[in-house]
Protein backbone atom coordinates (compact mmCIF):
# COMPACT_ATOMS: atom_id res chain seq x y z
CA UNK A 1 0.00 0.00 0.00
CA UNK A 2 1.12 3.53 -0.69
CA UNK A 3 1.18 6.00 2.19
CA UNK A 4 0.05 9.20 0.50
CA UNK A 5 1.54 11.31 3.32
CA UNK A 6 4.99 10.17 2.18
CA UNK A 7 4.40 11.86 -1.17
CA UNK A 8 3.76 15.30 0.33
CA UNK A 9 6.65 17.75 0.18
CA UNK A 10 7.04 21.20 1.66
CA UNK A 11 7.98 24.20 -0.51
CA UNK A 12 11.74 24.08 -1.14
CA UNK A 13 12.09 20.32 -0.44
CA UNK A 14 13.25 18.11 -3.30
CA UNK A 15 10.35 16.33 -5.03
CA UNK A 16 12.45 13.56 -6.61
CA UNK A 17 12.36 11.07 -3.64
CA UNK A 18 8.57 11.37 -3.43
CA UNK A 19 8.28 11.04 -7.21
CA UNK A 20 10.44 7.89 -7.15
CA UNK A 21 8.22 6.40 -4.43
CA UNK A 22 5.16 7.10 -6.59
CA UNK A 23 6.74 5.54 -9.67
CA UNK A 24 7.83 2.52 -7.64
CA UNK A 25 4.32 2.06 -6.29
CA UNK A 26 2.86 2.30 -9.78
CA UNK A 27 5.29 -0.39 -11.00
CA UNK A 28 4.35 -2.66 -8.09
CA UNK A 29 0.60 -2.08 -8.29
CA UNK A 30 -1.24 -4.68 -10.30
CA UNK A 31 -4.79 -5.86 -10.65
CA UNK A 32 -4.95 -9.54 -9.73
CA UNK A 33 -7.65 -11.71 -11.25
CA UNK A 34 -9.74 -13.77 -8.83
CA UNK A 35 -11.86 -16.81 -9.73
CA UNK A 36 -14.14 -16.13 -12.68
CA UNK A 37 -12.38 -12.86 -13.60
CA UNK A 38 -10.37 -12.40 -16.79
CA UNK A 39 -8.07 -9.38 -17.28
CA UNK A 40 -7.17 -7.81 -20.62
CA UNK A 41 -4.32 -5.28 -20.55
CA UNK A 42 -4.79 -2.54 -23.16
CA UNK A 43 -3.17 0.84 -23.77
CA UNK A 44 -6.24 2.49 -22.25
CA UNK A 45 -6.09 0.35 -19.11
CA UNK A 46 -7.26 -3.00 -17.79
CA UNK A 47 -10.57 -4.51 -18.83
CA UNK A 48 -11.90 -6.89 -16.19
CA UNK A 49 -14.39 -9.45 -17.48
CA UNK A 50 -16.44 -11.04 -14.71
CA UNK A 51 -18.00 -14.37 -15.57
CA UNK A 52 -21.16 -14.69 -13.55
CA UNK A 53 -21.87 -18.20 -14.74
CA UNK A 54 -23.25 -19.89 -11.69
CA UNK A 55 -24.91 -23.17 -11.02
CA UNK A 56 -28.64 -22.49 -11.36
CA UNK A 57 -30.65 -23.17 -8.23
CA UNK A 58 -31.93 -26.71 -8.68
CA UNK A 59 -34.69 -26.44 -6.10
CA UNK A 60 -37.39 -29.06 -5.39
CA UNK A 61 -40.41 -29.10 -7.71
CA UNK A 62 -38.60 -26.96 -10.30
CA UNK A 63 -40.74 -27.17 -13.41
CA UNK A 64 -39.84 -27.01 -17.09
CA UNK A 65 -42.69 -27.23 -19.57
CA UNK A 66 -42.86 -27.77 -23.33
CA UNK A 67 -45.11 -30.40 -24.88
CA UNK A 68 -44.41 -32.31 -21.65
CA UNK A 69 -43.70 -31.17 -18.11
CA UNK A 70 -40.61 -32.32 -16.24
CA UNK A 71 -40.53 -31.65 -12.52
CA UNK A 72 -37.42 -31.90 -10.37
CA UNK A 73 -37.75 -34.25 -7.37
CA UNK A 74 -39.74 -32.84 -4.47
CA UNK A 75 -41.36 -34.33 -1.39
CA UNK A 76 -44.39 -33.83 0.83
CA UNK A 77 -43.90 -35.16 4.38
CA UNK A 78 -40.80 -36.93 3.04
CA UNK A 79 -42.80 -38.80 0.39
CA UNK A 80 -41.39 -38.37 -3.12
CA UNK A 81 -43.97 -36.97 -5.53
CA UNK A 82 -44.86 -39.00 -8.61
CA UNK A 83 -46.59 -38.22 -11.90
CA UNK A 84 -47.93 -40.04 -14.93
CA UNK A 85 -45.13 -40.66 -17.40
CA UNK A 86 -46.25 -40.33 -21.02
CA UNK A 87 -43.45 -42.64 -22.18
CA UNK A 88 -44.27 -45.65 -20.01
CA UNK A 89 -47.90 -44.87 -19.18
CA UNK A 90 -47.10 -45.47 -15.50
CA UNK A 91 -47.15 -43.20 -12.47
CA UNK A 92 -43.44 -42.80 -11.68
CA UNK A 93 -41.53 -41.04 -8.92
CA UNK A 94 -39.93 -37.70 -9.81
CA UNK A 95 -36.54 -38.96 -8.57
CA UNK A 96 -36.63 -41.70 -11.26
CA UNK A 97 -36.48 -44.47 -8.64
CA UNK A 98 -38.84 -47.33 -7.89
CA UNK A 99 -40.20 -48.36 -4.49
CA UNK A 100 -36.97 -50.30 -3.81
CA UNK A 101 -34.84 -47.24 -4.50
CA UNK A 102 -33.59 -48.62 -7.81
CA UNK A 103 -32.95 -45.97 -10.46
CA UNK A 104 -34.92 -46.34 -13.68
CA UNK A 105 -33.25 -46.14 -17.08
CA UNK A 106 -36.29 -44.33 -18.54
CA UNK A 107 -35.15 -40.88 -17.39
CA UNK A 108 -37.43 -38.52 -15.47
CA UNK A 109 -41.20 -38.96 -15.83
CA UNK A 110 -42.70 -36.67 -18.48
CA UNK A 111 -46.25 -35.46 -17.95
CA UNK A 112 -48.01 -34.89 -21.28
CA UNK A 113 -49.47 -31.39 -21.45
CA UNK A 114 -53.12 -31.20 -22.52
CA UNK A 115 -53.29 -27.94 -24.49
CA UNK A 116 -57.09 -27.92 -24.24
CA UNK A 117 -56.91 -27.84 -20.46
CA UNK A 118 -56.61 -24.14 -19.59
CA UNK A 119 -58.69 -21.26 -18.22
CA UNK A 120 -60.17 -18.46 -20.34
CA UNK A 121 -56.89 -16.52 -20.07
CA UNK A 122 -54.88 -19.40 -21.52
CA UNK A 123 -53.34 -20.42 -18.20
CA UNK A 124 -53.01 -23.74 -16.47
CA UNK A 125 -51.37 -24.87 -13.25
CA UNK A 126 -49.30 -27.80 -12.13
CA UNK A 127 -50.42 -28.96 -8.70
CA UNK A 128 -49.08 -31.27 -6.05
CA UNK A 129 -51.91 -33.39 -4.68
CA UNK A 130 -51.98 -35.33 -1.46
CA UNK A 131 -54.16 -38.40 -0.93
CA UNK A 132 -55.52 -38.63 2.60
CA UNK A 133 -57.86 -40.94 4.46
CA UNK A 134 -59.53 -40.17 7.79
CA UNK A 135 -57.56 -36.93 8.03
CA UNK A 136 -54.19 -38.64 7.59
CA UNK A 137 -51.79 -39.05 4.72
CA UNK A 138 -50.72 -42.63 4.01
CA UNK A 139 -46.98 -42.19 3.64
CA UNK A 140 -46.64 -45.86 2.57
CA UNK A 141 -48.73 -45.28 -0.55
CA UNK A 142 -46.31 -44.70 -3.46
CA UNK A 143 -48.98 -42.56 -5.13
CA UNK A 144 -49.87 -40.54 -2.01
CA UNK A 145 -48.27 -37.45 -3.58
CA UNK A 146 -48.83 -36.76 -7.27
CA UNK A 147 -48.32 -33.92 -9.73
CA UNK A 148 -51.12 -33.12 -12.16
CA UNK A 149 -52.12 -30.46 -14.69
CA UNK A 150 -55.13 -28.40 -13.59
CA UNK A 151 -57.35 -26.04 -15.52
CA UNK A 152 -57.90 -23.56 -12.74
CA UNK A 153 -56.90 -22.50 -9.24
CA UNK A 154 -58.11 -24.87 -6.56
CA UNK A 155 -58.53 -24.65 -2.82
CA UNK A 156 -56.89 -28.03 -2.21
CA UNK A 157 -53.47 -29.28 -3.24
CA UNK A 158 -50.48 -26.97 -3.68
CA UNK A 159 -49.80 -25.10 -6.95
CA UNK A 160 -46.17 -25.57 -7.98
CA UNK A 161 -46.20 -23.56 -11.23
CA UNK A 162 -48.46 -21.48 -13.45
CA UNK A 163 -48.07 -21.71 -17.21
CA UNK A 164 -49.23 -19.27 -19.90
CA UNK A 165 -50.18 -20.63 -23.33
CA UNK A 166 -49.79 -18.57 -26.51
CA UNK A 167 -52.64 -16.86 -28.35
CA UNK A 168 -53.43 -19.94 -30.44
CA UNK A 169 -53.21 -22.15 -27.34
CA UNK A 170 -50.80 -24.62 -28.90
CA UNK A 171 -47.52 -23.61 -27.26
CA UNK A 172 -46.07 -22.32 -24.03
CA UNK A 173 -45.15 -18.63 -23.62
CA UNK A 174 -44.03 -18.56 -20.02
CA UNK A 175 -43.75 -20.72 -16.95
CA UNK A 176 -43.81 -19.18 -13.48
CA UNK A 177 -42.53 -21.22 -10.58
CA UNK A 178 -44.65 -20.97 -7.42
CA UNK A 179 -43.18 -23.55 -5.02
CA UNK A 180 -39.44 -23.64 -4.26
CA UNK A 181 -39.20 -26.05 -1.32
CA UNK A 182 -40.03 -29.54 -0.18
CA UNK A 183 -43.29 -29.44 1.69
CA UNK A 184 -45.07 -30.57 4.79
CA UNK A 185 -48.84 -30.68 5.00
CA UNK A 186 -51.31 -30.10 7.78
CA UNK A 187 -54.66 -31.78 7.27
CA UNK A 188 -57.20 -29.70 9.15
CA UNK A 189 -60.63 -31.17 9.78
CA UNK A 190 -63.53 -28.90 8.83
CA UNK A 191 -67.05 -28.72 10.22
CA UNK A 192 -68.23 -29.85 6.79
CA UNK A 193 -66.54 -31.31 3.74
CA UNK A 194 -63.06 -32.68 3.22
CA UNK A 195 -60.15 -31.77 5.51
CA UNK A 196 -58.35 -28.58 4.60
CA UNK A 197 -54.82 -29.10 3.26
CA UNK A 198 -52.34 -26.52 4.50
CA UNK A 199 -48.92 -26.82 2.85
CA UNK A 200 -45.79 -25.20 4.27
CA UNK A 201 -42.06 -25.48 3.55
CA UNK A 202 -40.17 -28.34 5.13
Amino acid sequence: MLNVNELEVKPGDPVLPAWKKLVSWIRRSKVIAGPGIRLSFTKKGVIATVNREETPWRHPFKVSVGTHAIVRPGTVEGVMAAMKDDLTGKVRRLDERDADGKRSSDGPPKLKIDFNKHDDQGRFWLYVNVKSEDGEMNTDDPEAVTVTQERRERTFGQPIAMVYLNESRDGIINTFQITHHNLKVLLQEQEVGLPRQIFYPE
Partner: protein
Amino acid sequence: MGTLRRRIPFKVREIGRRKWKHPFYHTLRHDGDNWLFQIRPGFVNASPVEASTQGKYLSPEAILRNNVQNLEDPVQAPLTDRPEIVVEDWRAIGAGADAQNASINADGSISESFEDVPEFFKQMGVSAVNRNISSSFTSGISVTESERPEDARLLRAFDTYIEMPRLETIVDWEFGTVLEATLATFTISYKEPTDSTPKLYQAAEFTPTTLPSEIDLLAGIFSDENKDQLKLATVYFVSQPGADPGDELDEKWQPYVEHETFFNLSHKLKTIPAPESNDPITLETGLAGGVADPIIGSLLATNNDLLNNARQIYNARSTGGTFWTI
Protein backbone atom coordinates in the same frame (compact mmCIF):
# COMPACT_ATOMS: atom_id res chain seq x y z
CA MET B 1 1.81 7.81 -15.97
CA GLY B 2 1.54 5.52 -18.97
CA THR B 3 2.21 2.51 -16.74
CA LEU B 4 -0.40 3.69 -14.28
CA ARG B 5 -2.94 4.20 -17.03
CA ARG B 6 -2.31 0.71 -18.41
CA ARG B 7 -2.65 -0.94 -15.02
CA ILE B 8 -5.79 0.72 -13.71
CA PRO B 9 -9.07 -1.04 -14.57
CA PHE B 10 -11.18 1.27 -16.72
CA LYS B 11 -13.92 -1.13 -17.73
CA VAL B 12 -15.66 -4.03 -15.99
CA ARG B 13 -17.81 -6.33 -18.11
CA GLU B 14 -20.23 -8.92 -16.80
CA ILE B 15 -20.93 -12.02 -18.85
CA GLY B 16 -22.83 -15.24 -18.28
CA ARG B 17 -26.06 -16.16 -16.59
CA ARG B 18 -27.51 -13.70 -14.15
CA LYS B 19 -28.07 -14.61 -10.53
CA TRP B 20 -31.35 -16.18 -9.48
CA LYS B 21 -33.73 -13.47 -8.41
CA HIS B 22 -36.48 -14.28 -5.98
CA PRO B 23 -40.19 -13.63 -6.47
CA PHE B 24 -41.14 -10.04 -5.53
CA TYR B 25 -37.59 -8.83 -6.39
CA HIS B 26 -37.78 -5.07 -7.07
CA THR B 27 -35.83 -3.24 -9.76
CA LEU B 28 -35.91 0.49 -10.49
CA ARG B 29 -35.10 2.83 -13.36
CA HIS B 30 -35.61 6.50 -14.20
CA ASP B 31 -37.25 7.16 -17.57
CA GLY B 32 -36.29 10.84 -17.71
CA ASP B 33 -39.53 11.97 -16.01
CA ASN B 34 -40.26 9.50 -13.24
CA TRP B 35 -38.76 6.75 -11.16
CA LEU B 36 -40.37 3.45 -12.16
CA PHE B 37 -40.26 0.18 -10.30
CA GLN B 38 -40.86 -3.33 -11.53
CA ILE B 39 -41.37 -6.44 -9.42
CA ARG B 40 -40.54 -9.99 -10.42
CA PRO B 41 -43.79 -11.98 -10.57
CA GLY B 42 -44.98 -13.18 -7.19
CA PHE B 43 -47.97 -15.31 -6.28
CA VAL B 44 -50.42 -15.57 -3.41
CA ASN B 45 -51.83 -19.10 -3.41
CA ALA B 46 -52.11 -19.81 -7.15
CA SER B 47 -52.82 -16.23 -8.31
CA PRO B 48 -50.27 -13.72 -9.58
CA VAL B 49 -50.35 -10.46 -7.65
CA GLU B 50 -51.78 -7.58 -9.71
CA ALA B 51 -50.62 -3.97 -9.84
CA SER B 52 -52.20 -0.77 -11.08
CA THR B 53 -50.26 1.18 -13.71
CA GLN B 54 -50.79 3.02 -16.99
CA GLY B 55 -51.00 1.23 -20.33
CA LYS B 56 -47.82 2.94 -21.53
CA TYR B 57 -45.81 1.07 -18.90
CA LEU B 58 -46.74 -2.35 -20.30
CA SER B 59 -45.04 -4.32 -23.07
CA PRO B 60 -46.89 -4.45 -26.44
CA GLU B 61 -47.93 -8.07 -25.74
CA ALA B 62 -49.24 -7.14 -22.30
CA ILE B 63 -51.15 -4.17 -23.79
CA LEU B 64 -52.98 -6.59 -26.08
CA ARG B 65 -53.51 -9.16 -23.33
CA ASN B 66 -54.96 -6.58 -20.95
CA ASN B 67 -57.13 -5.01 -23.67
CA VAL B 68 -55.67 -1.52 -23.15
CA GLN B 69 -57.47 1.09 -25.31
CA ASN B 70 -55.67 4.23 -24.18
CA LEU B 71 -52.05 4.17 -23.04
CA GLU B 72 -52.73 6.90 -20.47
CA ASP B 73 -55.59 4.97 -18.83
CA PRO B 74 -55.02 3.09 -15.60
CA VAL B 75 -54.86 -0.67 -16.00
CA GLN B 76 -54.72 -3.52 -13.51
CA ALA B 77 -52.11 -5.99 -14.76
CA PRO B 78 -50.69 -9.15 -13.19
CA LEU B 79 -47.00 -9.01 -12.23
CA THR B 80 -46.49 -11.84 -14.74
CA ASP B 81 -46.96 -9.11 -17.41
CA ARG B 82 -44.00 -7.23 -15.85
CA PRO B 83 -45.76 -3.84 -15.50
CA GLU B 84 -43.63 -0.85 -14.53
CA ILE B 85 -45.16 1.38 -11.89
CA VAL B 86 -44.46 5.08 -11.28
CA VAL B 87 -43.13 5.92 -7.81
CA GLU B 88 -45.87 8.24 -6.60
CA ASP B 89 -44.95 9.22 -3.08
CA TRP B 90 -42.05 9.03 -0.68
CA ARG B 91 -41.01 10.01 2.83
CA ALA B 92 -37.81 11.69 3.94
CA ILE B 93 -35.60 9.95 6.51
CA GLY B 94 -32.98 11.99 8.33
CA ALA B 95 -32.64 15.63 7.22
CA GLY B 96 -35.95 16.98 5.93
CA ALA B 97 -38.02 14.26 7.61
CA ASP B 98 -41.30 14.87 9.40
CA ALA B 99 -41.41 13.89 13.04
CA GLN B 100 -43.19 10.61 13.80
CA ASN B 101 -44.13 11.78 17.31
CA ALA B 102 -43.85 15.00 19.31
CA SER B 103 -44.45 15.72 23.00
CA ILE B 104 -44.15 18.82 25.17
CA ASN B 105 -41.84 18.54 28.17
CA ALA B 106 -42.30 20.21 31.56
CA ASP B 107 -39.74 22.90 30.69
CA GLY B 108 -41.64 23.90 27.57
CA SER B 109 -39.29 22.21 25.14
CA ILE B 110 -40.70 19.88 22.55
CA SER B 111 -39.29 16.42 22.02
CA GLU B 112 -39.64 14.87 18.60
CA SER B 113 -38.88 11.37 17.45
CA PHE B 114 -37.88 10.50 13.91
CA GLU B 115 -37.48 7.34 11.90
CA ASP B 116 -33.91 6.12 12.36
CA VAL B 117 -31.48 6.41 9.48
CA PRO B 118 -30.34 2.83 8.80
CA GLU B 119 -26.65 2.29 9.63
CA PHE B 120 -25.84 1.41 6.01
CA PHE B 121 -26.92 4.88 4.88
CA LYS B 122 -25.21 6.61 7.83
CA GLN B 123 -21.98 5.07 6.53
CA MET B 124 -22.73 6.64 3.16
CA GLY B 125 -23.02 10.09 4.70
CA VAL B 126 -26.73 10.44 5.44
CA SER B 127 -27.19 12.42 8.63
CA ALA B 128 -29.98 12.08 11.18
CA VAL B 129 -32.26 14.99 12.07
CA ASN B 130 -30.75 17.15 14.77
CA ARG B 131 -33.40 19.66 15.77
CA ASN B 132 -34.40 21.39 19.01
CA ILE B 133 -37.75 23.00 19.46
CA SER B 134 -38.53 25.20 22.44
CA SER B 135 -41.60 27.20 23.25
CA SER B 136 -42.46 29.85 25.78
CA PHE B 137 -45.19 32.42 26.24
CA THR B 138 -42.71 35.26 25.72
CA SER B 139 -40.65 34.08 22.77
CA GLY B 140 -43.13 31.70 21.11
CA ILE B 141 -41.84 28.58 19.35
CA SER B 142 -38.26 28.56 18.18
CA VAL B 143 -36.66 25.82 16.10
CA THR B 144 -32.92 25.37 15.98
CA GLU B 145 -31.48 22.84 13.59
CA SER B 146 -27.81 22.01 13.73
CA GLU B 147 -25.97 22.45 10.48
CA ARG B 148 -25.52 19.47 8.23
CA PRO B 149 -22.10 18.79 6.73
CA GLU B 150 -21.91 20.37 3.29
CA ASP B 151 -21.38 17.03 1.61
CA ALA B 152 -24.13 15.22 3.53
CA ARG B 153 -26.48 13.04 1.54
CA LEU B 154 -30.27 12.87 1.85
CA LEU B 155 -32.41 9.76 2.15
CA ARG B 156 -35.94 9.14 0.93
CA ALA B 157 -38.00 5.97 0.91
CA PHE B 158 -41.30 4.35 0.05
CA ASP B 159 -42.81 0.96 0.90
CA THR B 160 -44.55 -1.68 -1.17
CA TYR B 161 -47.12 -4.11 0.20
CA ILE B 162 -49.83 -6.49 -0.92
CA GLU B 163 -53.43 -6.81 0.11
CA MET B 164 -55.33 -10.08 -0.01
CA PRO B 165 -59.13 -9.71 0.12
CA ARG B 166 -60.88 -12.10 2.48
CA LEU B 167 -64.22 -12.85 4.13
CA GLU B 168 -65.26 -10.21 6.62
CA THR B 169 -66.81 -11.36 9.88
CA ILE B 170 -69.91 -9.39 10.87
CA VAL B 171 -71.58 -9.50 14.29
CA ASP B 172 -75.23 -8.46 14.76
CA TRP B 173 -76.92 -8.24 18.16
CA GLU B 174 -80.63 -8.52 18.99
CA PHE B 175 -82.39 -8.30 22.34
CA GLY B 176 -85.56 -9.73 23.79
CA THR B 177 -86.85 -10.56 27.24
CA VAL B 178 -88.11 -13.67 28.95
CA LEU B 179 -89.69 -12.67 32.26
CA GLU B 180 -87.12 -10.31 33.83
CA ALA B 181 -84.02 -11.64 32.10
CA THR B 182 -82.81 -10.07 28.89
CA LEU B 183 -81.89 -12.42 26.09
CA ALA B 184 -78.98 -11.19 24.02
CA THR B 185 -78.73 -12.88 20.66
CA PHE B 186 -75.80 -12.41 18.38
CA THR B 187 -75.41 -13.65 14.86
CA ILE B 188 -72.10 -14.06 13.13
CA SER B 189 -72.28 -13.70 9.38
CA TYR B 190 -69.76 -13.25 6.60
CA LYS B 191 -69.38 -10.83 3.74
CA GLU B 192 -67.58 -12.07 0.65
CA PRO B 193 -65.06 -9.70 -0.98
CA THR B 194 -66.14 -8.38 -4.37
CA ASP B 195 -62.75 -9.31 -5.87
CA SER B 196 -60.42 -11.98 -4.54
CA THR B 197 -57.29 -10.92 -6.48
CA PRO B 198 -54.16 -10.14 -4.44
CA LYS B 199 -53.07 -6.59 -5.24
CA LEU B 200 -49.86 -4.60 -4.97
CA TYR B 201 -49.80 -1.12 -3.43
CA GLN B 202 -47.19 1.52 -2.68
CA ALA B 203 -47.19 4.05 0.16
CA ALA B 204 -44.80 6.70 1.42
CA GLU B 205 -44.84 4.63 4.60
CA PHE B 206 -46.66 1.35 5.08
CA THR B 207 -48.81 1.43 8.19
CA PRO B 208 -50.51 -1.94 8.65
CA THR B 209 -54.16 -1.76 9.54
CA THR B 210 -54.53 -2.81 13.15
CA LEU B 211 -57.35 -5.18 13.81
CA PRO B 212 -59.62 -4.09 16.67
CA SER B 213 -59.65 -6.26 19.77
CA GLU B 214 -61.76 -9.40 19.82
CA ILE B 215 -64.07 -7.79 22.40
CA ASP B 216 -64.63 -4.70 20.24
CA LEU B 217 -65.28 -6.86 17.20
CA LEU B 218 -67.63 -9.08 19.19
CA ALA B 219 -69.48 -6.08 20.57
CA GLY B 220 -69.87 -4.74 17.05
CA ILE B 221 -68.14 -1.50 18.11
CA PHE B 222 -65.62 -1.91 15.28
CA SER B 223 -65.88 -3.80 12.02
CA ASP B 224 -63.63 -6.64 11.00
CA GLU B 225 -61.21 -6.03 8.12
CA ASN B 226 -62.02 -7.53 4.74
CA LYS B 227 -58.37 -7.91 3.73
CA ASP B 228 -54.95 -8.94 5.05
CA GLN B 229 -51.79 -7.02 4.27
CA LEU B 230 -48.12 -7.91 3.97
CA LYS B 231 -45.17 -5.61 3.39
CA LEU B 232 -42.89 -6.57 0.51
CA ALA B 233 -40.02 -4.08 0.60
CA THR B 234 -38.73 -0.61 1.40
CA VAL B 235 -37.13 1.25 -1.50
CA TYR B 236 -34.58 3.86 -0.44
CA PHE B 237 -33.19 6.68 -2.57
CA VAL B 238 -29.85 8.25 -1.63
CA SER B 239 -28.94 11.68 -3.02
CA GLN B 240 -25.60 12.94 -4.28
CA PRO B 241 -23.52 14.69 -1.57
CA GLY B 242 -24.66 18.21 -0.79
CA ALA B 243 -28.29 17.79 -1.89
CA ASP B 244 -30.96 20.07 -0.46
CA PRO B 245 -34.15 18.78 1.23
CA GLY B 246 -36.17 20.68 -1.38
CA ASP B 247 -34.51 18.87 -4.28
CA GLU B 248 -36.60 16.79 -6.65
CA LEU B 249 -36.28 13.01 -6.68
CA ASP B 250 -34.55 12.92 -10.07
CA GLU B 251 -32.27 10.47 -11.85
CA LYS B 252 -29.25 11.57 -9.81
CA TRP B 253 -30.59 9.71 -6.74
CA GLN B 254 -29.41 6.15 -6.25
CA PRO B 255 -32.07 3.51 -5.37
CA TYR B 256 -31.51 0.68 -2.89
CA VAL B 257 -34.09 -2.00 -2.07
CA GLU B 258 -34.53 -3.74 1.28
CA HIS B 259 -36.69 -6.77 0.56
CA GLU B 260 -38.82 -8.36 3.27
CA THR B 261 -40.55 -11.08 1.24
CA PHE B 262 -38.43 -13.53 -0.74
CA PHE B 263 -40.76 -16.31 -1.83
CA ASN B 264 -44.27 -16.78 -3.12
CA LEU B 265 -46.98 -16.79 -0.52
CA SER B 266 -49.80 -18.89 0.80
CA HIS B 267 -52.73 -17.18 2.46
CA LYS B 268 -55.43 -18.99 4.33
CA LEU B 269 -58.33 -17.99 6.53
CA LYS B 270 -58.19 -19.09 10.13
CA THR B 271 -61.43 -20.98 9.58
CA ILE B 272 -63.68 -21.72 6.66
CA PRO B 273 -67.14 -21.03 8.03
CA ALA B 274 -69.65 -23.86 7.83
CA PRO B 275 -73.15 -22.96 6.58
CA GLU B 276 -74.74 -23.49 10.02
CA SER B 277 -72.33 -21.04 11.63
CA ASN B 278 -74.82 -18.31 10.70
CA ASP B 279 -77.22 -19.67 13.34
CA PRO B 280 -77.87 -17.07 16.04
CA ILE B 281 -76.41 -17.65 19.51
CA THR B 282 -78.56 -16.64 22.45
CA LEU B 283 -77.13 -15.63 25.82
CA GLU B 284 -79.34 -15.21 28.89
CA THR B 285 -77.84 -12.14 30.47
CA GLY B 286 -79.83 -11.85 33.69
CA LEU B 287 -79.85 -8.09 33.10
CA ALA B 288 -82.98 -5.99 33.14
CA GLY B 289 -83.98 -3.56 30.42
CA GLY B 290 -83.69 -3.79 26.68
CA VAL B 291 -81.29 -1.03 25.63
CA ALA B 292 -78.60 -2.57 23.49
CA ASP B 293 -75.34 -0.77 24.23
CA PRO B 294 -75.35 -0.95 28.05
CA ILE B 295 -76.28 -4.62 27.92
CA ILE B 296 -73.48 -5.49 25.47
CA GLY B 297 -71.18 -3.31 27.52
CA SER B 298 -71.91 -4.98 30.84
CA LEU B 299 -72.03 -8.38 29.17
CA LEU B 300 -68.59 -8.03 27.67
CA ALA B 301 -66.92 -5.82 30.24
CA THR B 302 -66.61 -8.51 32.86
CA ASN B 303 -64.79 -11.76 32.66
CA ASN B 304 -67.74 -14.04 33.18
CA ASP B 305 -68.96 -17.30 31.65
CA LEU B 306 -71.15 -15.50 29.17
CA LEU B 307 -68.24 -13.47 27.91
CA ASN B 308 -66.04 -16.53 27.66
CA ASN B 309 -68.74 -18.44 25.78
CA ALA B 310 -69.28 -15.54 23.40
CA ARG B 311 -65.54 -15.12 22.82
CA GLN B 312 -65.04 -18.81 22.14
CA ILE B 313 -67.83 -18.81 19.62
CA TYR B 314 -66.54 -15.65 17.96
CA ASN B 315 -62.98 -16.92 17.90
CA ALA B 316 -64.05 -20.21 16.33
CA ARG B 317 -66.04 -18.47 13.63
CA SER B 318 -64.03 -15.34 12.82
CA THR B 319 -62.01 -15.51 9.62
CA GLY B 320 -58.75 -13.56 10.04
CA GLY B 321 -56.18 -14.68 7.50
CA THR B 322 -52.46 -15.46 7.64
CA PHE B 323 -49.64 -15.30 5.08
CA TRP B 324 -46.64 -17.58 4.91
CA THR B 325 -43.96 -18.19 2.29
CA ILE B 326 -44.00 -21.40 0.36
